[in-house]
Structure formats: structure tokens, C-alpha cells
């Protein structure tokens, strides 16, 4: 090990595990991240996994950052290289001066050696050989042994780790001691043979505060329960499946009446059916939702147009993955913005929400149901694999018990008695929103026929050009209402010349990128979009800045197109910054893209005058 140990860096590093899918590494790696989190250190985890169940390469990356820089950072400080197949690329990804931990039971091939990194060989296979007789156990415990090695190299609190092991195997107590033995085996080896800890290490911190560590899909499923969804219909597709699974798991605990369920969940035969069930249930007054990904949204198009035109509430979670087509199904992207906003034929457009954190997934899980009922239209919530499937540090979930569901304009039997003539699509309030009734409400009032064909204000079929036109105009008025009530953007405006717009998980590396840009003299105001249609604030922000970067994770600058299209904005003003290779966008990428845009002289002008 190196003797030229530089200054010690605490709680600031990137560790990446390269494993083989299905080798049991996931739980060891998860324990590693959780242990750091339990030590109060802010961490972000990223699973980079194949669309395969067993045998293909998989990576798990942990960003450790007391500064709360939890987006992806380029370069790996410590690579735990456990997959011989990917050695070449794994070795290449280590930063100069970084470390490579590998199983030295077999010597590392000469061509893999790098002069500018440190190799740490641990004979993992040999270490487990005498301890465990069963070959399957051997390979499982290898993971625990390297966890022990890491605990020594990084100075992870050992009690925290052993505590995690005990918690993990609670109920299977006979597994606890062998796991602890394996941890000690690795730790002892490191202490005896590897010298001291690395120059980057961890120590107890109060950086986490009261935050929780959870994935966005779990948050979404819980949010739907709190928001009162009683029907969920879905069709399995990565990375959305765990939304429905979380809903079911928690509903089975939280929505029971004795042994009977106060909810229904259907794994449908396909996405068309899933959204049809949601629409049928919502039409009949039950809050309902589905979760899918890009291919599912494509299939749901026709039904979404029906729900838009017939004005039926529906909530759809789209956990985006890399397209087009099946694309890279286990990689993240923000590439369904346009297909969600304009899903279906004809003049159709939809309300879209863009959560950025698990807490926001929880909130939008409930808010989307309110908005759907209020606006009587589908609400599409665009999360992505990065947010949905990775454990993210998040503010804890909150629920105000005085909060009331907004069920929108729905008439009861008593209210119907007061009405002279019920008209489903009459715009009584000038907000473009009509009045609904649920089937079975009243013996002879309030029944109407729902259809995807044109109809008049009383829901009667019509092909009258005037009636059709008036109806389309009213839908446009409703759209304006939507722009006023959807979640507002989050804006930081110091009157600078340059602005940056982003949304969803692109928010994760933003602070780090902004801080680094500021060091280079580039000061940027920011706006995190949270919903479509865009509210006034969105266009004012653009108006108030000379140049605005639109940073997103798709090739075609989809949000930029949406802004240009909906706000009639001069495209020259909106500079696209796009990353779409399937990993999450990094602070480095954002920083360099923006910095490269400005020459030295232009940079000087930027800082010269700020309003």
C-alpha cells in the first residue's frame, strides 16, 4: 500500500461494486450503504443492473458525501472488482490515485495493471474455502468477507455493521454468527495484511439528520394509499413494478378491515387493460391508479385520449427507462416527456407531474389523485429508474391529518334534488370543469352517458360543429385552470443573467454542478419544474434571463421543445444540455456543458453586471 498517504478525506468518496447478477452481492452491498447511512453520513446508491435475472454484470455505486452532493460523480475512488468479466472497464473507471480491491486468489492479468492506481488484493476465495463447505455458501460469504475488508479500509463502525447483519437475518438466527464470522475474517485480514485504512474514510456524522433512505417507487405506492386510492391495476414492467408491489404490501397492512381488504389490486393482462380498469373505477368514483414505463404509456394512448375527452380522472405513474422501444430497459432516462404530455391522437394534452425525491413521490402519490378528481382528467406522474428503484436519501414523509381529499365537483343525491336539469359538461363556474355524478347516486336524476365521441353539454351525442367547437374551447379553459393549480416550480432567482431549468432526478447533481460553476465565475439562477401545464412563473423566469439552459436526460431536449411549443419561446434562448447514455446525469457533465458554452470573454461579461 502507498506510503505517500496524502491528507485524509472524510465522508467524501465514490465506491463502486462490480458483481455478477444473482450472486448474492446485492444484500451485502445494501448493508454497506445502510451502515454508512446509520453512521449519519449522507449516501446515495445507484444500482446499474442488466435486464437479466442471473449471470450478467451488475454494478452498485455508493456516493458518500457530507456536503450532500448526492448526484452521480464521474470517476470511482474505490472499485470493488468482483467480476472478472468486466475487469477491464472496471479498472479503467478508477480515478488516478484511486484504489482497486480484487480477489487475489488468482493473480491479476498483467494487461489490467495500471501504474496510477493502487491495487488491493485479498484472496477472498481462499479465505472462505476452509470456513464453508458448500460452494454456494462460499460464494455468498465472499460478499460478506469483502464487506469486512471494507469496514477496516474505510473505518466503518463495526458494531453498526454487525448490527445490520443481525437485523437482516432476524428470524434466521443460525445465519447470524456465520455472517459475523465472515465479516471478522475480512476485517482481520485487512488489519493484518493491508496496512492502515485508506486516505479517504468515513466517520460518524450528523449529515443525515432526520432523513430517511427509501426508493421513490415505495414512496409512490405509499402516497397512493395516503391519497385514498382504492383500486390499482398494473402490468409488470421494469422499473415500475415496485410501485404496485409497494401499494399492495402496505395496503395489506394499512387498508384492512379485519381480514377483508379496503382496496382492490389487479395484475392486468396488459397495459391497455390496466388503464381501462383505472378509468372504469375512477368513472365509478373510486380513486385509482396504474404504474408503468414508456412501452406501457405507448399502449395506453387510446385510453388516455378517451379519459381526456370524456373527462375521467386517472393517475398513471410512468417510471421512465431508456427508450426508444425496449431500449435499455434497466437504465434511466427522462425521455417520455413529450409522449406523456401529448399521449393519444387528436388535440390531446395531459397534466404531467415531475417528482424529484422520494418525499415528492409520496406527496405526488396523493396530490395526483386530488388533481385528477379536481380536473377530471388523467394525471401522469413522470419518475424514472434512478429515483424509483434506488434508495435515495429523502426528507421523511409527512401527512397533515387535517388534510382533506379534493374529490372535485361531484354531486350527491341531495344536491341533485336541488338541480333543475343536470348537465354533465355545463361550465357553471367558468373554470372549464363540469359536474360529475357517480352511477347509482339518484333514482331519476344525474345519470349521463360517457363517451369518447362528441357530445353536447348534457352528454348527448352531437355532430354539431358549434357544440364540438364549444366543447374543445371549454377543455382549453380547463387546461388554463390546470396551469394555475398544479405544483409550482421551485425557483432560485438572484437576478443573474443565466438561468438553468431542470426537473426530476436531474435535480440530484445540480447543487454540486452549480457550486463548481460558481467557482469558475459562472453564476446561475435555477428553476426546477414540477408540473405541466406550465404556470406563469415558468415563463416569467425565462423572460427574466438572457440565456437559459434546459438540462435533461434525453437526446431530443424534450422539455425544451415543450417549453418552446407551449410558451412560444424563441428557441435560441433555450440552450439544451442533454445526457442520455443510460446512467444518471452527473455534476461533471452539467458543469462542463455549461462552462464550455462560455468562452473566457463571455464569462467575464457574465460576472460583470448582475442585476
Amino acid at each position, binding site marked *: 500500500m502507498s506510503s505517500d498517504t496524502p491528507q485524509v478525506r472524510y465522508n467524501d468518496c465514490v465506491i463502486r461494486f462490480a458483481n455478477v447478477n444473482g450472486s448474492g452481492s446485492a444484500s451485502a452491498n445494501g448493508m454497506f450503504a445502510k451502515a454508512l447511512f446509520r453512521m449519519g453520513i449522507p449516501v446515495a446508491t445507484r444500482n446499474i443492473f442488466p435486464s437479466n435475472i442471473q449471470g450478467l454484470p451488475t454494478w452498485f455505486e455508493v456516493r458518500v458525501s457530507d456536503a450532500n452532493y448526492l448526484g452521480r460523480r464521474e470517476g470511482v475512488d474505490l472499485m470493488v472488482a468482483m467480476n472478472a468479466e468486466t475487469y477491464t472497464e472496471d479498472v479503467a473507471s478508477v480515478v488516478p490515485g484511486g484504489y482497486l480491491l480484487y480477489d487475489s486468489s488468482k493473480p491479476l492479468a498483467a494487461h489490467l495493471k495500471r501504474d496510477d492506481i493502487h491495487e488491493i488484493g485479498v484472496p477472498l476465495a481462499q479465505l472462505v474455502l476452509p470456513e464453508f463447505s458448500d460452494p454456494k455458501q462460499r460464494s455468498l460469504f465472499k460478499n460478506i468477507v469483502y464487506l469486512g475488508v471494507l469496514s477496516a479500509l474505510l473505518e466503518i463502525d463495526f458494531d453498526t455493521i454487525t448490527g445490520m447483519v443481525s437485523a437482516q437475518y432476524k428470524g434466521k438466527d443460525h445465519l447470524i454468527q456465520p455472517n459475523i464470522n465472515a465479516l471478522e475474517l475480512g476485517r482481520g485480514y485487512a488489519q493484518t495484511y493491508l496496512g492502515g485504512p485508506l486516505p479517504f474514510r468515513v466517520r460518524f456524522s450528523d449529515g443525515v439528520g432526520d432523513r430517511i433512505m427509501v426508493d421513490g417507487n415505495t414512496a409512490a405506492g405509499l402516497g397512493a394509499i395516503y*391519497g385514498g386510492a382504492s*383500486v390499482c391495476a398494473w402490468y409488470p414492467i421494469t422499473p415500475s413494478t415496485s410501485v404496485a408491489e409497494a401499494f399492495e404490501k402496505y395496503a395489506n397492512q394499512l387498508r384492512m378491515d379485519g381480514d377483508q*381488504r379496503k382496496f382492490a389490486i*389487479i395484475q392486468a393482462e396488459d397495459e391497455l387493460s390496466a388503464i381501462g380498469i383505472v378509468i372504469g*373505477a375512477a368513472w365509478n368514483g373510486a380513486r385509482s391508479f396504474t404504474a408503468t414505463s414508456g412501452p406501457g404509456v405507448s399502449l395506453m394512448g387510446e385510453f388516455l385520449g378517451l379519459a381526456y375527452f370524456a373527462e375521467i380522472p386517472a393517475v398513471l405513474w410512468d417510471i421512465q427507462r431508456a427508450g426508444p422501444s425496449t431500449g435499455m430497459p434497466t437504465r434511466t432516462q427522462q425521455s417520455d416527456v413529450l409522449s406523456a404530455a401529448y399521449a393519444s391522437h387528436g388535440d390531446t394534452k395531459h397534466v404531467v407531474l415531475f417528482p424529484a425525491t422520494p418525499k415528492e413521490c409520496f406527496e405526488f402519490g396523493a396530490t395526483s389523485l386530488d388533481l385528477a378528481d379536481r380536473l377530471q382528467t388523467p394525471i401522469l406522474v413522470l419518475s424514472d429508474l434512478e429515483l424509483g428503484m434506488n434508495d435515495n436519501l429523502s426528507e421523511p414523509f409527512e401527512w397533515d391529518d387535517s388534510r382533506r*381529499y379534493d374529490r372535485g365537483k361531484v354531486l350527491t343525491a341531495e344536491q341533485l334534488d336541488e338541480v333543475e336539469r343536470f348537465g354533465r359538461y355545463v361550465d357553471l363556474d367558468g373554470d372549464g370543469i363540469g359536474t360529475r355524478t357517480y352511477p347509482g*347516486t339518484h333514482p331519476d336524476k344525474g*345519470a349521463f352517458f360517457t363517451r369518447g365521441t362528441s357530445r353536447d353539454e348534457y352528454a348527448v351525442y352531437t355532430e354539431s360543429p358549434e357544440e364540438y367547437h364549444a366543447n374543445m374551447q371549454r377543455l382549453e379553459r380547463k387546461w388554463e385552470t390546470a396551469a394555475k393549480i398544479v405544483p409550482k416550480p421551485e425557483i432560485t432567482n438572484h437576478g443573474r443573467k443565466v438561468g438553468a431549468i431542470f426537473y426530476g432526478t436531474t435535480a440530484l447533481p445540480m447543487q454540486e454542478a452549480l457550486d463548481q460553476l460558481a467557482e469558475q465565475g459562472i453564476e446561475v439562477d435555477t428553476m426546477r419544474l414540477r408540473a405541466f401545464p406550465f404556470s406563469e412563473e415558468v415563463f416569467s423566469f425565462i423572460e427574466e434571463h438572457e440565456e437559459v439552459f434546459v438540462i435533461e436526460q434525453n437526446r431530443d431536449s424534450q422539455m425544451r421543445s415543450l417549453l418552446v411549443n407551449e410558451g412560444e419561446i424563441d428557441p435560441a434562448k433555450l440552450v439544451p444540455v442533454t445526457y442520455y447514455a443510460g446512467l444518471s446525469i452527473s455534476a461533471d457533465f452539467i458543469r462542463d456543458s455549461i462552462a464550455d458554452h462560455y468562452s473566457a470573454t463571455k464569462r467575464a461579461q457574465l460576472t460583470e453586471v448582475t442585476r
Partner: protein
Amino acid sequence: MTFVAKPKAHHPKLPKNELGLTRRDYEGSVSTLCAGCGHDSVSAAIVQACAELSIPPHMFAKVSGIGCSSKTPSYFLGNSHGFNSVHGRMPSVATGAKLANRELYCIGVSGDGDTASIGMGQFAHIVRRRINMLYVVDNNGTYGLTKGQFSATNDLGSTSKKGLPNLYEPIDLVSMALQLGASFVARSFSGDKRQLVPLLKAGLMHEGFAFIDVISPCVAFNNHSGSTKSYEYVRGHSESMIASDFVPPGEEITADYEPGTTETVQMPDGSKLHLNKLDADYDPHDRVAALAHVQQRAAAGEIVTGLLYVDPDATDTHEILNTIDTPLNQLNEAELCPGSDKLHSINESFR
């Protein structure tokens, strides 16, 4: 065109049901289908069945896909909510509607195109799911609304109005429903009200998924001699029971024949249909025998009509899912929202 609801001036002589309502109270708006269209007879039979069952009209939810047949929910039960959804997807909408409120009677109307082609997947799966509803297919062996293309229920070799033969094997929806586990399976003929009305009533009362395939001739596109879904052909090849008291101007063809007999129906254009009415001693509790019977008669060129199979101990989706008795759409916030205390301990589990 706009439709005005029929005035519900109560005819003093119309018989009243247990709720004091007459058939008029179960009617819908005026049909815009072709005069003599079999689908109108099915609607009339639904009106009669619902009235005779004395179910309050607003307690129905009507759902359909797209097609002439799928338009018909407008023409019955004007005091119920209806939902004319998208082509082939009525089963999913019905599933959602029924999950939301298990107390409503759900009537789904579809066509042979809507069910046996574009909606085949959804049809198969709603049968499996056992939604407690009445699913009626107005089966005319053609795409009426798009002007007469072949549908998947057309028999091999039957001809289109233009005389072109159908080149592909037919799908028999009744056999499919039996195979997929439907707990109530029947077939009838739109013009045989004496058989159809009791079947509709039984289907509505069935506590599970009830399927009725109603052969319902299209007078515009599939009522010629080469068609096996014409009035004529069905009457001539049907094995089954009934009389019709509803005869729209001129063209509707009715069948009134006794159980166990075969009636050949002559179509205006000379085609014949052989309906075979199930014998009075036919046992409708044997799924395997039902399937065999349907196929044996089909091999003999006959269409079996009547109640083919019923499982008196049927279950439905709510039973399978073990949902509470209260309709889900009637649960209030206190019953739906777990509250902040629970959330604190959930947060704790993520630390």
C-alpha cells in the same frame, strides 16, 4: 344528429313491476340503428328483463366498446349511467367499474368484432377474473359500423354481401367462455324473445360472470343467403325455445319454437339458419358436456341455443380478492387514509 329522450308519459295500461315502474322507465333514447337491426331486439329484451326483475333503473352501470352493438346502451336504461368506451376494451372498463362498486348491476354490451377480434385478450381475461356482470355479445358476424367486413365469428366459407368467401376459421365465443371458466354461458337469438328475456334475467341474477352470445343479424350487411348469421340461417339451424312480441317495422324475423326442436329461419334474401334449442332435460351443470354438445351440434351444422352452463356456486372477483362488502367508492377518508401516526413508524422503518 341529436337524440331527445322519449317522454316518459306513463301509459295507464302498461303493467307495473314491484317498484311500480313500467317498461317505459327502463327504456333509453330512440335507437338510430337500421330498422330491423337485431341489436334493437336485444335492447328491447334487456329493457323487458330489467323491468321484470324490478331492479331500480339507476342501479345499473352500462358499459360497451365501439360498434353498432356498443351504441345500444344508449337505447336502454336511460336512467342509468352508461359508458361507451373504446373498441374492444369494455371488459377492462367493466372490471374497474365493478371493483369500485360491487352493488351495481353491470351490463356490458359488445359486438363480435369488439369481442372476438380487437377485444379477444380482454374478453379472455375478464372471464378468468370472474367479474360479476352480464356480458352480452350482439353477434352479427360482421363489422356493422365499418360497413360489412368479415368478423372472426364468421363461419369458414360463408360469404360477404359482395359474395366473397370467408377464408378463415371462426371463433366460437360460447366455447371459449366455457373453456375459460365462465360460470354462466348461454346463447340465444335476437329474434327469440321468449328465450332471450329469461336468459338475460338469469344472467343478471347470476352471482358471477354471465356470458350470452346473442346472434343478432345485421340487416344492412350480413343478412343474405351466404351468411350464417342471418335471421334465416339462425332460425333454420338453431337448437332451442321462444316467441317475440317486439317486431320493428317490417323486417325483423322472429323465431318461436319448442325446446328440443330445430327451427330453420328463412331470411328475406333466402338464406337459412338452423337453431337448435336445448332439450328441457338438458343438464346445464356440466361444463365438459356443454362444450361437447355445442361442438357436436356445430358439426351437424346447427347452432345450439339456450342456457348451456351455469355454476350455482360461482364466485366473483370481490370474493377472490376478499374485498369488504362496502363498495370501495363509498369509503371515506377516515377509512382510506392511515394517518400521520402510522406514517411516523413507516418513516422509522426507513432509518
